[in-house]
């Protein structure tokens, strides 16, 4: 059974109104910001963003903010706990009649992969466990980006970062496999989890619309193609994001109360097409091609889709 979009069938149905305004100091071609821009078209303006330390911290730099909604910068390790405090306080103030219901807000955590996969994992786990009614938006650019691209638990095998350089001992660069945060989240059985990619706006918007029907934790993992860290021309972000999905490296999926559905089944181009676009994988092709490393990446993708069984 193929996954059907119900709210967003055509691109024209995506609202034209912008809720994340341009002119921020984020890098040109930031895939994470593009994913957030699309998400905000569904989330609207009645939002308080609770931010963890990361690239998005620079969205709201005094005296500017690109949002028409509210913002609270917390720490790298505790944005979900900040969401807990805001949500609880809003509930209490509404219940006590000190805040009109019409002033209520959606609470949305913004965290990069460094925060999400590493530092804020216990805080996120706690928030899901408590059934907190909030959104979690992880912009996953597969490295500690804001500090200049260091290895994170989201960095994939074979990528080069400043702290996992390719060397004689480790010619592939990163030797660890990317942590499967989707499955870690899913083990908590929240009502809604999804992966999204900015090059698939209908898929992305549909997932945010579906999430809105659930009370409780709603978690999103957004592919954040990153020209600065992945080393490609900023204009190529759409192509890189597209190939991440089309090679099967970035599966588009959702999990409703733990039940996984793949929302798009790629024909699966060879991973090489994706890897060779990016400077962070260049050492896999030059000066000599590392066939074994590339084959390893391809085999991992093939194995993933075999167990998906579509």
């Amino acid at each position, binding site marked *: 059974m193929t996954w059907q979009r119900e709210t967003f069938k055509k691109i024209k149905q995506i609202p034209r109104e912008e809720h994340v305004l341009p002119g921020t100091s984020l890098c040109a071609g930031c895939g994470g910001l593009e994913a957030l821009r699309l998400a905000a078209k569904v989330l609207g303006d009645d939002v308080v963003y609770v931010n963890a330390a990361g690239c998005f911290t620079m969205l709201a*730099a005094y005296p500017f903010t690109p949002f028409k909604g509210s913002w609270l910068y*917390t720490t790298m390790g505790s944005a979900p706990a900040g969401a*807990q405090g805001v949500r609880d306080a809003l509930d209490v103030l509404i219940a006590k009649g000190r805040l009109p219901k019409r002033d209520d807000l959606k609470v949305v955590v913004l965290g990069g992969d460094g925060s999400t996969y590493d530092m804020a994992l216990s805080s996120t786990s706690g928030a899901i466990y408590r059934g907190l009614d909030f959104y979690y938006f992880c912009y996953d650019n597969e490295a500690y980006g804001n500090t200049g691209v260091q290895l994170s638990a989201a960095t994939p095998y074979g990528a080069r970062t400043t702290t996992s350089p390719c060397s004689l001992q480790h010619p592939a660069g990163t030797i660890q496999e990317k942590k499967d945060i989707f499955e870690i989240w899913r083990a908590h059985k929240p009502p809604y989890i999804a992966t999204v990619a900015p090059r698939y706006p209908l898929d992305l918007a549909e997932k945010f619309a579906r999430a809105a029907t659930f009370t409780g934790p709603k978690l999103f993992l957004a592919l954040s193609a990153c020209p600065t860290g992945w080393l490609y021309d900023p204009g190529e972000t759409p192509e890189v994001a597209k190939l991440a999905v089309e090679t099967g490296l970035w599966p588009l999926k959702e999990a409703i109360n733990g039940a996984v559905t793949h929302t798009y089944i790629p024909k699966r181009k060879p991973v090489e097409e994706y890897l060779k676009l990016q400077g962070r994988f260049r050492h896999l092709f030059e000066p000599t091609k590392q066939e074994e490393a590339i084959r390893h990446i391809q085999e991992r993708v093939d194995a993933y889709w075999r167990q998906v069984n579509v």
Partner: protein
Amino acid sequence: MAGEMMTGNLAAAWGARLAGVDYIPAFPITPQTEIVEALAEWCDCGAMPARFVMMDSEHSMMTAAGAGAAAGARVFTATSSQGLLYAFEVLYSVAGWRVPLVLVNVSRALAAPITLEPDHNDVLAARDAGFLQIHAETCQEVLDSILMAYRIAEDERVMLPVLVNLDGFYLSFTREPVIVPDPEKVAAFLPPLRPAHLGFKASAPHALGVAVLGGTPYTYFRHQMHLAAMNALQVHREAAADFERLFGRRYDVVEGYRLDDADDVLVMSNAFATKGRAAVDAARAKGRRVGLLRLRVIRPWPAEAIVTALRGRRAVGVLDQNLAPGLGGILVQEIAATLYHDPARPKAICSFIGGLGGKNIHEGEFDAIFARMEQAGKAGRGEGPVLLYTEAEHREMEQLQILASESRADR
């Protein structure tokens, strides 16, 4: 004496209950846990109209507390020792958000070695976080200080979080008679929280805790925090006067004991100050003209009150229940700096380190402290840090070392 017998922990919980808090994010740690247990029960049975949430760490707890207060709720939480340090970066963040929450810290010495009994390295580590700090000596003062803390924190001239400190075991688990104030009088003392500039709402979006670029805006906001903290001295004066009028109990930023004709003055804080008072009485009986100054408000630093109390004395001794390895006592540095510019500054300032990990300070040690202060005052030269540790205590330690080495030999 009127009042009901209760522990310092229960008195702290009563403070939060009477303050009518809206929100309590919590996390257990000895010796604080009894506070959040009492609050959990009261929230559960409807005695308190507040939301109680068990968090996943003190770091998360403090973040939720700050965020809840930023959203406009009156927030209370409590921790101790390692918990306070685990929350450390968040202390600075929420103070920068200018949220008027109240945090109770039940002092407990820091690891390593890990222990449960009190000293003040935990709470004094947080002295520069932007929280105001009130250190209580009795269970009654714990309750009363929490009410005063909300009044001061929520004043528009201040808008900073307040930490109320009580000593683990010596207050947390000690029952004393405590008068529970009448809720109607509390309502007269503490107006409802209706902050003009806090709260997240759809009709008035705002951004809090945003990044700044460059030193100028950073400096501006940090200066604002300092000036607000200094305003708290005046706000405390007003709150103390109102508190005395309504409840008949008086609390000042510092408290003197038998200071009037004292030649030498010992400076202490928290529950051990009670031992200090007894020591002053004992020394007076032996003919020494000594007194005690208890520091109650540590942030803002009550410089003027300290100078007023200590100028013209022969010697001042500071009994630090903390140890900065490689320096000595923490509070003696601040006392010395405060007195330096006064022309009538004491002739000697002595530094004593005692009560670490809850270790007792014996009568004989106080005798020695007062004798050394007198000697230093007469010589016009202070001394220290003097690490208080008796021969009897060392004999006990040697027994433990023998046991430790024997058990090692057994393996």
